[in-house]
């Protein structure tokens, strides 16, 4: 009886729940046992370390993991590989990336860049005196957080200074960075506070779609749901794509968690890894911009296409 593991960051984020559903379907198809685990919060390294150890104890063939702390987990992954387990990293690459057997992920910087470029081109001339609010993830800036944030800035044409850190820029168009913890309620509070500082905001970058939904409620409450403010996000979950359709979110970079998980299980089960471009270093499961208002020079898919590919 073959055991393969899947370890995600948390258990409640729909992104990971869908990833798990994808893995479950694949496991049933392959006739293997899937053992799942998750951290207790986004950033919980110790929970993931214990999960890996338990998989070793369970005699698993290998596992896929979305690392909470891309550096701190490395020695434990090494331990698992030494014990003969195949390890495939999903969503958030390790540092160094080659510490895993393979990485299947969204290119988060690119995901940010896509919405940044789209926002910039959509605004056109107005882009040069835009007022931008950033609803980021957490004070300690985990990888996804700065990758998407800095990617957006690069796409929008802002000088990012240190590309692995936000908050050090001096572009006048940046009005404020607020913390949303990727949560809808906290996203709303963050947007409310941002509105106090930047009453004339017209672009809102959000770390993910729950934060975007919260921001929308805050904007709606002050009558700024009239199209004067553009929200961009990352995820491409079904509620998010529907929000694009409804005009709540202007554009979102869609990720493909089910694909990541299914591919990973297949690869561990068969022992055959897909072709990986050495220049990138990981298998890019792709990020596509979903928007109802495509602009030239920024590849995008329609809402209808997005809805077909969406998760959760």
């Amino acid at each position: 009886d073959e055991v393969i593991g899947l370890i995600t960051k948390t258990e409640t984020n729909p992104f990971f729940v869908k990833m798990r559903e994808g893995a479950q379907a694949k496991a049933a198809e392959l006739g293997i046992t899937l053992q799942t685990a998750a951290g207790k919060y986004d950033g919980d390294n110790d929970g993931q370390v214990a999960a890996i150890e338990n998989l070793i104890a369970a005699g698993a063939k290998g596992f896929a993991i979305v690392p909470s702390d891309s550096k701190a987990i490395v020695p434990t992954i090494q331990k698992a590989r030494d014990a003969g387990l195949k390890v495939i990293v999903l969503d958030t690459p390790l540092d160094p990336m080659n510490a895993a057997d393979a990485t299947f992920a969204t290119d988060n910087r690119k995901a940010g860049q896509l919405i940044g470029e789209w926002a910039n081109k959509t605004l056109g001339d107005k882009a040069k005196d835009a007022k931008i609010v950033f609803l980021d993830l957490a004070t300690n800036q985990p990888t996804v957080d700065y990758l998407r944030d800095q990617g957006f800035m690069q796409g929008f044409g802002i000088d990012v200074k240190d590309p692995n850190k936000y908050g050090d820029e001096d572009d006048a168009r940046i009005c404020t960075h607020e913390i949303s913890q990727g949560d809808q309620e906290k996203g709303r509070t963050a947007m409310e506070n941002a509105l106090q500082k930047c009453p004339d905001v017209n672009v809102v970058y959000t770390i993910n779609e729950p934060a975007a939904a919260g921001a929308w409620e805050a904007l709606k409450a002050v009558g700024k749901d009239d199209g004067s403010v553009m929200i961009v996000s990352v995820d491409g979950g079904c509620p998010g794509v529907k929000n694009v359709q409804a005009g709540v979110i202007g554009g979102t970079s869609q990720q493909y968690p089910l694909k990541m998980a299914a591919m990973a299980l297949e690869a561990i089960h068969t022992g055959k890894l897909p072709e990986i471009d050495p220049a990138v270093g990981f298998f890019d499961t792709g990020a596509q911009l979903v928007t109802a208002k495509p602009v030239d020079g920024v590849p995008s898919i329609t809402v209808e296409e997005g809805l077909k590919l969406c998760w959760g």
Partner: protein
Amino acid sequence: MSDNASGSGSAESGLAGADQSVASFDETDVGLVRRMQGFLHQYPTSIPFIVLLVGVVIFSIAAPGKFFAPFNFSLVLQQVTIIAVLGIAQTLIILTAGIDLSVGAIMILCSVVMGRTAVVYGVPVEIAFPLGLICGIACGLVNGVIVTLLRLPPFIVTLGTWSIFGALNVWYSKSETIRSQDMQEAAPFLQWTGSLFKPYDFFSKTLGLDWTFLKGWVLTYGSIVMLLVALAVWYILNRTAFGRHVYATGDDPDAARLAGISTTKTLIGVYTLAGFICAIAAWVLIGRIGGVSPQAGQTANLDSITAVVIGGTSLFGGRGSIIGTLIGALIVGVFRNGLALSGLELLWQDFAVGVLIIVAVTIDQWIRKLSA
């Protein structure tokens, strides 16, 4: 033995004609300070209120123009509403010397039950909403029954049910978000707590009063629900027998039992009521985020306990008040909002919140000592 000692009988003969007057002392010293002291001594909940005012003054200076504005005050009120409602539930529990780690989980579970039943399963909101309330009552009842019948520490029980309710949430919600738009279509009533009440419009329309000073003030109906819940619980605690039993149970459970109170009934009542209030919080939550998000409210437990403790309620039970909790929630809300507006770097905002919490409670204790 002295020759005077001839039993208690002889001593008592001295009692004839004993003074029957009640002790009384002249209250001559009635300067302003003493009157202030007397006031604070009699109304100790006014003390955290003073601390709150101090906070408001400081931030009005630190973030000029932005912080001190009717609109911003309305915002702060909206931002603290959920934690305040949960804080009321938590106050009830903490007054009995318990603690409830499951309030956040109950709230999410009930919001999922209300929202998903109505929107995804298409059940009329007239049924889905009461179902959500029953969910809260049931969760609270489970807590209460385990705490009393198995005689386990509330910390353990609610730690366990936190896990259990959380699992049920994942199971029932399938971790799927419900969008504000879908909610608006299927069950707008659930969003009502998020809609705005404008006192100026209200008074000018209904009573024809042109109270311009009210212009700019807005309230969500959620905030009004919060105030009503607070009022009701205040009444229960202070004006009914059940309320007295809550205090007695928390103060000294053995004494309460010996005095003939059923601490079991009291505790089950408290946990159930708290569960019901968590369900109300779920309604307020839906109003605030427009829809349902199964991952919301993860810090709600600690935040609600914080509001209670800053509001002056003792974690050891038997001492505290609902008004304190409301003010406690507001104090934290004002600090967070004020610091966010102050433009301080995020990292130093965290630092400042920590310092301010300690300072606030220090001032509180200091005034209390002066007025003792």
